[in-house]
C-alpha cells in the first residue's frame, strides 16, 4: 500500500493497534515482491517445456540452448521465490495473529495443499536442473510436467485463501466463536474459480511479456538471430493468449463484485452515489467527498460492472463511512490494471493481425521498444490488480467478519521487523539483478556453462555443467 493508503488508515482508525501499520506495510512489501517471483514459478516451467521439447523433437540446438539458459534463470528466481514464500508463512503468524489464531483451521487447508504442490515443484526443479546431460533426454523433459501442474495447484490454493477472505464461508460464528468448520467448503468457496483463472493468466502475461521483452531488448541492440527470435516468440505467444483471454475473465469476475462486495465496486468505479445507469468514470480522485478530474462516459459503467446498460452501480453512500475502503487507491489501481491490460491485449492482437496480413513487426524498432516496456507494464497491471482487490476489501481482512485492525499484531516492535524487511528485500533485489545481468553477459561472451569462480583447483573437483 502506498503513502496515501497509510494516511487513510491512520485517519480512519485512531485506536488501531500499534502493529497494524507496520504489519500492513511489511505484508504489502513481501507479498508484492513475492507475487512477481511466484509468477515465474507458475508460468516459466511451461514455457521452458515448450522450447525444450522443440529442442529434442526437432533436434534444434537453438531451442535447447534457450531451455538450458531459462532453466538456470528459473533456478535463481525459484530460490529467492522459495525464501520469500517462507517469509510469508512466518508473517502470517507474526503480523496477523488475530486472523490466524481465530481462523487458522478454517483457511489453513488450502495452504497445506499449496505446501504439497510447492514440495513437488521444488523436488522436480532439483531433478530437472541437475538432470541436464545426466538423464535420458525425454525423461528429463518429463520432469517439467509435474512442475507445471504444481504451479496450477499452487496458484489455485493460494488464491483460494484470498478468495475465502473475500467470500468467507465454511464456518459459523456463534457469539464470536468459530464453529461448524468445513475447511473444504472454505477452500472451494464461490469466488475461487474466477479469481484463480484471473491470477493464473496474469502469471502468463507477466512472465510472457517480461521474457519476450528481454529478447526484444537484445534485438534492439542488433542481436537479431534465431536465438533471439525464438526467445521472443515463444513467451510472446503465451503472453498473447493470456492477454486476450484476461479481459473476459476480469469482466466476469468484476460482475460478481457488485453482488458480493458492493463497497469495493463503488470504489473501483469511483461512485459516490448509486447511479442508474452509471457512467464509466475514467481517472479522477475523490477529495472531500467530491470527484475531481474524472472523464465520465455515460452508461458504460453499468455495462462494465453489471453487464447491462441500465442496472445501477452501488455508490459509497450505501456503505457506512467506517466500512468504506480507501477509495482513491482502489479506484486508481483498478483503472491502471484495466487500462494496461486493455492496452496490452490490443497491441498483441494488432501484432498478429499485421503478421497474418504479411507485415512482420519484429524488425520495427518502435515495436521492439514497446515489447520491452510491455514486461514492466504487465507487472504493473498485476500489482495494481492485487492492490485493487486487497485495498478494496478494507477495512475487512475477512469480508464482513473480521476487521484488519483486529487481525493485526499488537506489537509496536514490528516497525523494526519492517525496517529489516526493507533492507533485506532491497539487498535481495540488487543481488538478483547483479547475478542475472552477469549471467546474461557471460552467456553473450560464449560462456555457456557458467562455472562458479571458487578459485584455482575448482575444475579438478567437478568440471561438469552446472
Amino acid at each position, binding site marked *: 500500500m502506498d503513502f496515501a493508503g497509510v494516511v487513510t488508515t491512520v485517519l480512519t482508525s485512531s485506536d488501531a493497534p500499534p502493529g497494524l501499520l507496520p504489519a500492513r506495510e511489511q505484508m504489502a512489501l513481501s507479498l508484492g515482491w513475492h507475487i512477481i517471483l511466484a509468477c515465474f514459478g507458475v508460468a516459466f516451467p511451461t514455457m521452458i517445456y515448450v522450447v525444450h521439447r522443440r529442442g529434442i523433437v526437432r533436434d534444434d540446438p537453438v531451442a535447447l540452448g534457450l531451455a538450458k539458459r531459462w532453466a538456470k534463470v528459473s533456478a535463481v528466481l525459484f530460490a529467492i521465490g522459495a525464501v520469500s514464500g517462507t517469509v510469508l508463512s512466518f508473517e502470517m503468524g507474526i503480523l496477523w495473529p488475530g486472523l490466524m489464531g481465530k481462523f487458522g483451521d478454517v483457511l*489453513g487447508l488450502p495452504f497445506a495443499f499449496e505446501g*504439497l504442490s510447492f514440495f513437488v515443484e521444488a*523436488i522436480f526443479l532439483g531433478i530437472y536442473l541437475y538432470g541436464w546431460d545426466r538423464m535420458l533426454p525425454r525423461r528429463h523433459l518429463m520432469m517439467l510436467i509435474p512442475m507445471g501442474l504444481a504451479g496450477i495447484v499452487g496458484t489455485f490454493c493460494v488464491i483460494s485463501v484470498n478468495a475465502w477472505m473475500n467470500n468467507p464461508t465454511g464456518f459459523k460464528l456463534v457469539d464470536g466463536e468459530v464453529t461448524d468448520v468445513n475447511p473444504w467448503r472454505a477452500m472451494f468457496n464461490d469466488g475461487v474459480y474466477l479469481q484463480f483463472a484471473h491470477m493464473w493468466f496474469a502469471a502468463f502475461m507477466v512472465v510472457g511479456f517480461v521474457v519476450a521483452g528481454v529478447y526484444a531488448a537484445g534485438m534492439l541492440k542488433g542481436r537479431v538471430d534465431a536465438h533471439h527470435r525464438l526467445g521472443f516468440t515463444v513467451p510472446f505467444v503465451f503472453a498473447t493468449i493470456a492477454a486476450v483471454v484476461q479481459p473476459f475473465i476480469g469482466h466476469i469476475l468484476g460482475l460478481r463484485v457488485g453482488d458480493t462486495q458492493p463497497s469495493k465496486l463503488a470504489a473501483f468505479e469511483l461512485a459516490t452515489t448509486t447511479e442508474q445507469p452509471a457512467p464509466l468514470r475514467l481517472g479522477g480522485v475523490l477529495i472531500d467527498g467530491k470527484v475531481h478530474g474524472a472523464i465520465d462516459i455515460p452508461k458504460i459503467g453499468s455495462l462494465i460492472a453489471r453487464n447491462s446498460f441500465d442496472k445501477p452501480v452501488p455508490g459509497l453512500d450505501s456503505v457506512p463511512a467506517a466500512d468504506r475502503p480507501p477509495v482513491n487507491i482502489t479506484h486508481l489501481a483498478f483503472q491502471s490494471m484495466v487500462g494496461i491490460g486493455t492496452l496490452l491485449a490490443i497491441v498483441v492482437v494488432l501484432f498478429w493481425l499485421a503478421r497474418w496480413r504479411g507485415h512482420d513487426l519484429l524488425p520495427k524498432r518502435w515495436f521492439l521498444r514497446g515489447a520491452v516496456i510491455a514486461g514492466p507494464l504487465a507487472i504493473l497491471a498485476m500489482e495494481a490488480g492485487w492492490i485493487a482487490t486487497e485495498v478494496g476489501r478494507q477495512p475487512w481482512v475477512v469480508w464482513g467478519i473480521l476487521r484488519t485492525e483486529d487481525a493485526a499484531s499488537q506489537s509496536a516492535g514490528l516497525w523494526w521487523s519492517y525496517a529489516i524487511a526493507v533492507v533485506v528485500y532491497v539487498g535481495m533485489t540488487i543481488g538478483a539483478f547483479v*547475478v542475472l545481468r552477469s549471467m546474461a553477459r557471460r552467456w553473450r561472451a560464449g560462456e555457456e556453462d557458467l562455472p562458479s569462480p571458487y578459485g584455482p583447483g575448482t575444475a579438478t573437483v567437478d568440471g561438469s555443467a552446472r
Partner: protein
Amino acid sequence: MSLAVVVAVAMFAGIVLYALFGGADFGSGFFDLTAGGSERGGELRVLIDHSIGPVWEANHVWLIYILVIWWTGFPETFAAATTTLTLPLALALVGIVLRGASFAFRKYSATLAQARLFGAVFAGSSLITPFFLGAAAGAVASGRVPAEGNGDQLSSWLHPTSLFGGLIAVGTCAFLAGAFLTADAARSGHGTLSETLRIRTIGVGIVTGIVVFAALVPIKHDSPTLSDRLLGPAAPLIVASAAAGLATLVLLYRRRFAPARVTAVAAVAAVVVGWGVAQYPWMLVDQVKISAAAGADATLAGLLVVVGLAGVIVVPALAYLFWLTQSDRWTETH
C-alpha cells in the same frame, strides 16, 4: 490416539525430517564458513555446492509443511508462539532469506569477489537460522510461551533452555553435514579433503555431544516439566543418541564413512524425538495440551488427507531425487 495427537505426530514427523534434511543442509554452511581462503577452500566449497545443490530447496519445504500444519491444526498456539517469539523467528527468517538467496547467487557469480561475498552471507546465515529456530523451540519446550500469546519478547527465549536449544541445533546440523560431506568427499575421490573433514567432524561431534549432555543440567533447573520427562520416558532415546553419536565418532575415526552417516542420522533423530517425547502431551509446555490446542475436527481430518497425499506423492518423488543424487550417473565427472 485422538485425531489431534495424530496430526501433532504428523507435524512432529516434519520437524524430525527438517532437523535431518534441513539440518545437514544448514550444517554445510558451517563447513563452508571454516573452509579457509578462496583458494584453499575452493575444493570444499564446490563439494558443498554439489552435495546440497539439487536438494536444498526440497529440504527447505519441510519448514513450510511444519508451519502450515501448525497454524491449520493448532491455530491459537501458532498465534501465541509467533506473537511471543517474534524476535527469534524474525532473525531465523532473515537467516533463511539471506542463505537461500546468496546460495543461488553464489552459484552464478561472475567474479571471485562476488562469489566470496555471497558465500560469506550464505555460510554466516547458515549458523544464524538453526540457532534461532532452536532457541524458539527451547522457548516453547520450557513453558515460556503463554497460551494467550504476546509473552515477553526477550525473557521468553533469553534463558538457558533456549540458548542451549540454539547451540544444540547448530551443533547437530554441523555434525550431520560433516558426516555426509566426509562420505561425499571420500566417494568422489578427494582423499585429502575427506581427511580434513573427518577430523573436523569428529571435533564437532565431541563438542556437540558435550553441549547436549551439559544442557541437561541447566534444563533441569530451568524447565522442570521438560526435564522430568527427558530423564523419564525420553531417557532411552537420550541414551540411544549418545550411543549412536559415539558410534559415529568411532566409525569416522576408522574411516567407515558410509555407516557413519547412518549413525549420525540416528543420533540426531534420537535427540529430536527425545525432545518430542519429553514435550508430550503439551503443545505449549505448561500452557496448552495438544488436545486442547486442536482446531476443528473436520480440518484435522483434511490435514490427514494432505499428509496421506504427501506420503503418496512427495515421498516417492523425494526418494527419486535423493536416489539420483547418490547414484553414480549423477556423481561422475562429465
